[in-house]
């Protein structure tokens, strides 16, 4: 059950029935009212229709995850009720389409039921399509969702479509409100009151990656459509031409990374974004980027695998692929994001690292962040540091792969007189010409590995949540961090000594920091959403820590109570 000023509403129904827009409106209105928002949605892989749910968590405090379960369910149809009724525990509330809908639910003992004839009211108003507006009006009346800001966001959205459509939707909203007010409220669930609005944007993880890419100075993007990453390409396609950049939709993921390597060789900041199946296809070219020392960024929005797997579902199971997925010895820099804010900031970091270290960088996001919209401080473009690759100064004879103190060799872009050189996947000497000399291959491998090794300790220190000694230390990554943050806070409130360790740089691994953290904890628990315990594997391989692996892979993220229960179990 949620804390005070922290409400979770789940809107559920048939895809195409306005579930998503309802959720978006509530999220935007709440953000406008100065509140923090974290949304979470699931939808089917089918093209049209199917069950769809959108969960909005609203709080006057910072929210880190989608929460344990909902407080309020808004069921737009019988299927939505059927699929969620097991979560209707005493104290929860359900707003449902009745009479006139396709179901007549039995409201369990202790659950607050609010029948609202959404379909009927919409039909009476003249369009079934306004059903979600009626639902939203009722939710607003029953749960204190700020009416003023809701109407502002509705106006912003529908104004473009003309006054007639706007007024029709407002009328449907008012009708819902009237129906809601007519009901006797028996629970105490309410959205927190409006506070002073903050300087925020509300943005999804995928859009945020696109925004970060532009803020990081991206000039060339090549993409191939894949769920759940395609929105990144859509964002970039829409906005990059404004900055004179280029987006190409390639013929496959291999071509998209191939184009990125070509564009980067040609001197442009370039990236692609994909999901696991695409990253699998790209693995040979990642080796080429490593060997040819070509600055490259690949964003992998992980989804349920293996193979086609669960394309629209959440999983964190590409860590092995991201760190080691190609033939030969060819590691790369692997970063992972916790939340939507990271999607912006760490895409900038990732582009900078690719430029600085002249190697492939993989940024891991995941399915639950891809579509999660969150309130994020509005980025300030001038506040980002942009790194450009070390370029040749034109002095003397040019050696593309010259050995230097930091093992990073200056690059000459095509068009630079005297800088003509070859970028090649063959082992080569300093001038790029093929070389099979044993000592050269060893020296070149040391160069390519060595240049990124120091990053493990030079990147910003891993965040440690908590101080002193702990009975259980939790190490986790990706969007699971947000779940663990809340679990740690709640466990601490119960007097249990827990700490969190939240790495964002997955490779090279800051081993010393892992060891130092583990030294302060009696036990180490590693929750992650994959079958094998992929981070646990790397911890065992690279450190002396022997963690307790806690894995789930049902297509959904953890929620805080799962972590809390597990910690109590291992204590």
């Amino acid at each position, binding site marked *: 059950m949620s804390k005070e000023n922290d409400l979770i509403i789940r809107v559920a129904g048939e895809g195409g029935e306005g579930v998503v827009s309802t959720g978006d409106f509530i999220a935007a*209105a709440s*953000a*406008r009212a100065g509140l923090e928002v974290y949304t979470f949605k699931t939808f089917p892989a089918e093209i049209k229709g199917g069950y769809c749910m959108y969960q909005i968590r609203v709080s006057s405090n910072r929210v880190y995850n989608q929460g344990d379960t909902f407080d309020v369910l808004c069921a737009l149809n019988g299927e939505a009720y059927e699929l969620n009724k097991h979560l209707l525990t005493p104290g929860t509330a359900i707003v449902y389409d009745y009479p006139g809908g396709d179901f007549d639910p039995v409201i369990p003992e202790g659950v607050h039921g609010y029948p609202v004839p959404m379909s009927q009211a919409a039909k009476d108003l003249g369009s079934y399509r306004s059903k979600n507006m009626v639902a939203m009006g009722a939710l607003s009346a029953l749960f204190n969702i700020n009416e003023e*800001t809701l109407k502002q*966001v509705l106006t912003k959205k529908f104004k473009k479509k003309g006054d007639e459509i706007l007024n029709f939707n407002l009328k449907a909203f008012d009708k819902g409100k009237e129906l809601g007010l007519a009901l006797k409220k028996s629970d105490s669930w309410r959205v927190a009151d409006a506070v002073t609005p903050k300087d*925020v*944007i*509300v943005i999804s993880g995928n*859009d945020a990656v696109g*925004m970060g890419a*532009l*803020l990081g100075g991206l*000039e*060339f993007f*090549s993409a191939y459509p894949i769920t759940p990453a395609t929105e990144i390409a859509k964002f970039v396609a829409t*906005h990059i*031409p*404004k*900055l*004179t950049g*280029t987006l*190409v939709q*390639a*013929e496959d993921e*291999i*071509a998209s990374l*191939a*184009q*990125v*390597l*070509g*564009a*980067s*060789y*040609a*001197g*442009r900041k*370039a990236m692609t974004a994909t999901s696991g199946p695409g990253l699998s296809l790209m693995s*040979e*070219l990642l080796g*080429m980027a490593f060997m*040819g020392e070509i600055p490259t960024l690949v964003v992998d929005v992980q989804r349920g695998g293996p193979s086609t797997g669960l394309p629209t579902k959440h999983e964190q199971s590409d860590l092995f692929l991201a760190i080691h997925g190609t033939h030969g010895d060819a590691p790369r820099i692997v970063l992972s994001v916790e939340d939507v804010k990271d999607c912006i900031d760490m895409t900038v970091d990732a582009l900078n690292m690719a430029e600085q270290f002249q190697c492939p960088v993989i940024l891991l996001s995941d399915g639950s962040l891809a579509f999660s919209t969150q*309130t994020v401080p*509005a*980025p300030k*473009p001038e506040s980002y540091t942009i790194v450009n690759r070390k370029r040749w100064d034109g002095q003397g004879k040019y050696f593309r792969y010259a050995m230097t103190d930091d093992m990073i060799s200056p690059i000459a872009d*095509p*068009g*630079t*007189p*005297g800088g*003509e*050189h*070859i*970028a*090649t*996947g*063959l082992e080569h000497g300093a001038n790029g*010409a*093929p070389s099979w000399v044993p000592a050269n291959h060893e020296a070149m491998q040391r160069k390519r590995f060595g240049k990124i090794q120091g990053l493990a300790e030079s990147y910003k220190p891993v965040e440690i949540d908590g101080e002193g000694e702990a009975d259980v230390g939790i190490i986790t990554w990706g969007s699971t961090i947000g779940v663990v943050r809340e679990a740690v806070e709640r466990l601490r409130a119960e007097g249990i000594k827990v700490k969190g360790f939240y790495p964002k740089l997955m490779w090279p691994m800051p081993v010393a920091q892992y060891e130092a953290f583990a030294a302060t904890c009696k036990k180490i628990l590693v929750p992650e959403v994959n079958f094998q315990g992929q981070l646990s594997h790397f911890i065992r391989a690279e450190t002396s820590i022997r963690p307790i692996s806690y894995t789930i892979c049902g297509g959904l993220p953890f929620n805080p109570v799962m972590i809390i229960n597990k910690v109590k179990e291992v204590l």
Partner: protein
Amino acid sequence: MSVAALHKKEMAPKEYKSDVSVVWCPGCGHHGILNAILRAVSELGVDPTNMVSVSGIGCSSRTPYFMQSYKMHTLHGRAGAVASGVQLARPDQMVVVTGGDGDGFAIGGGHMPHMARRNINMTYILFDNGIYGLTKGQYSPTSRRELKAYTTPYGGPDDPMNPLLYMLTYGATYVAQAFAGKPKVCADLIKGALEHKGFSYVNIYSQCVTYNNIDTIQYYRDLMREIPADHDTTDLGKAMDLARGDGEGHRPMGLLYQVQQETMDERLASIVKLVGGSKDYDQNKIINQFRP
């Protein structure tokens, strides 16, 4: 064609040669094609500083090493896709791909149609020897069924493809063919390709003296027929007729097809123009769209 690269230098063909020694077998047709390329760039006064040569994997994919220019030796089958990225990112550069029939049409076959239909402003020179030479003689997508090769000891089970028809079908805007035994013809067709604005494809038959004992230089001499001088190179149907062959097993030599069409980089540039793109665009305008 790239304005930045053309008519900038006065260099003899041999000055375009790098100091990396050519590794092909004596008698290989590729020597003739390399010389034709060097001759073409010399005659056009190409500035090597503004030229990017890209290749994949195979005997012919070694070509960039032997030339003065910016160059990329990429992965098997990926040269065209990498080169597309170079060209679209840097339309000011002259981009040339060199590669073989296996590299281009087997493993790289997924990329070929897209370079053509996008009309990427670059030149693809395909060294067609009907064999995988670097892996010691396996049959390729252009091998004749009669070829008894490494993995086809009883002859090939599948029919060869027709590269010219393929390229014409997918929308290449310059399609030509020759054979390595005619270096002057090769050089002229490559020159035309380099000067052409749009995707230009030059198919050059090349004898493999080591692994293909049926497609000899004499075989190609008998095979090739010069395209009649009165052929209308803007007529796609007639170009396709030529590509199909004359019904007596001969193959056309010369320029089959050439038309002017908007290139992909021009289309992308017009999108930038459409949205009023500028390096100084205020990103806050994008950020503000996400305010609630």
